[in-house]
């Protein structure tokens, strides 16, 4: 047959229309299945995942997740670091008054693609991506907290601040906790895995699941619309509960 190779011409068409991943990733398909259950998605620049180009301190890498383009339409935001041994970072559900914006510091084990995926009410996942370079070792480095004598006495202590902006206020939190991820020899998992923000009248404003990729002594920031005090509840894997009031 002279035309045996004709189908070769159609190969480019197979790739046509397939979403173009903005970062070089070997694991997107895997995580798409694992965390998003193969649900429909788009790579979307409107989900801003802002990370420095390199991790100066692989144990404290600042991430900013900005999905304010979908304000009022967000069900939840999942974030992970693809090449981390423990990839998951956070499952954030902003509800009333809390904007779909989050700042968090994380551990990075090596240079990796980062993802922040936003589920909107129409059932579509919007995927924001970033790439970070790192010397590595952030996840397996020994704890800094545990070298400080008397750290147990400060467990769960929360430092907070509220900073007014034009249409909302920024709430920043710093929590004393070793956030042991189970990867340091002889120290089992022990980390804050749940956080809630509630209004004065006990309405749930935002809920958050945290995973061990979150840095020790977690730093978190939210943007909250409207005035009034806000209550924060944290729970760790040993069942301890910590409460704080944001003025």
């Amino acid at each position: 047959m002279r035309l045996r190779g004709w189908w070769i011409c159609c190969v480019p068409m197979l790739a046509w229309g397939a979403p173009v991943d903005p970062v070089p990733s070997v694991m997107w398909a895997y995580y798409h299945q694992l965390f998003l259950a193969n649900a429909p998605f788009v790579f979307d620049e409107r989900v801003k995942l802002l990370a420095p180009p390199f991790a100066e301190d692989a144990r404290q890498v600042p991430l900013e997740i900005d999905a304010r383009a979908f304000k009022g339409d967000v069900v939840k935001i999942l974030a992970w670091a693809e090449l981390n041994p423990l990839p998951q970072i956070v499952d954030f559900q902003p509800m009333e008054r809390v904007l779909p914006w989050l700042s968090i510091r994380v551990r990075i084990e090596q240079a990796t693609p980062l993802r922040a995926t936003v589920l909107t009410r129409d059932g579509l996942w919007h995927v924001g991506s970033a790439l970070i370079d790192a010397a590595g070792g952030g996840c397996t480095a020994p704890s800094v907290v545990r070298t400080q004598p008397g750290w147990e006495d400060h467990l769960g202590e929360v430092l907070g601040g509220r900073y007014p902006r034009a249409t909302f206020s920024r709430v920043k939190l710093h929590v004393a906790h070793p956030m042991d991820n189970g990867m340091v020899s002889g120290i089992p998992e022990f980390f804050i895995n749940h956080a809630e923000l509630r209004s004065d009248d006990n309405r749930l404003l935002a809920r958050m699941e945290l995973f061990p990729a979150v840095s020790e002594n977690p730093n978190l920031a939210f943007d909250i619309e409207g005035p009034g005090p806000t209550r924060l509840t944290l729970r760790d894997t040993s069942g301890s509960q910590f409460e704080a009031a944001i003025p």
Partner: protein
Amino acid sequence: MSPRWIMLWLILFSLPVLAELDYGLKPRLIADDTWLLEGSTANFTKDNGGNIVNVGFIVTEAGVVVIDTGPSRRYGEALRQAIARVTEKPVIQVLLTHHHPDHALGNQAFKDVPIGALAGTAELLHAQGDSLAENLYRLVGDWMRGTEVVLPGEVLQAGVKTFGSHDLQLLHLRGHTGADLAILDRKTGVLFAGDLVFYQRALTTPHTPGLAQWQADIATLQGLPWTLVVPGHGPIATDAKPFEQMRDYLTWLDHLLRDGAAQGRDMSELIRSPIPERFATINLARYELTRSVTHLYPQYERTQMQPINTQQ
């Protein structure tokens, strides 16, 4: 293929690997008896082999005093050869300004000479040297081959140390790493400022005890009777411009962090802050801002937050 052909191919393809890595060190006379090996103001790369640092030596009547030994064993050995091309006098003393790898990893080439450093420098090099060296292997690669940490054997204190006709005034300062040695040659007026002074190259902050301390050290250095300033990184100067640039940059950085914390700005927001036009000549300002914010911002942030626990 005959064995002879295979041999030929092997030689051909391994030529780039066999090519000798050469720092091309050329000492420059900057004052009487005083020589400088000026590094680039770039970052560590596989092209420069870590030669981003200023290393000096003073040829005294008693012998040669070397100030810092460079980033690798290869550099240290090249430095020794460069010194031998300039003078027949033996090297009699090494003075380390601080423990950072680009200044102290050439020590292996000076094992036969007393290597002096502040007590704090020796402790820091002992604690961090291996991981600092490891990071340099990652950044510059094969230039580092065979490089190992050699700890200083002599503890230096503030005061005057005399070599031949050169009275060297040693200052124990802290701003850059917590243990920083500055050296003023009272005979020539040359001030080896170490990394307390960066000029036209953004300063680095991984081990600074605080920017206020650094500012105080700059004032101390500027008040000395110097005629020529040798920064740890960047071009030498006979005027006060390096001090002015340091003061300006440190003040800007301090205000940026303080105002950012007071306004509750996020760390990654601060990393993206615009860099003032007047710092356009400073190499690596953007890169070092990312690093400095990571190092320093958490302390600034905490001063602007209050304990808010209701119960535990």
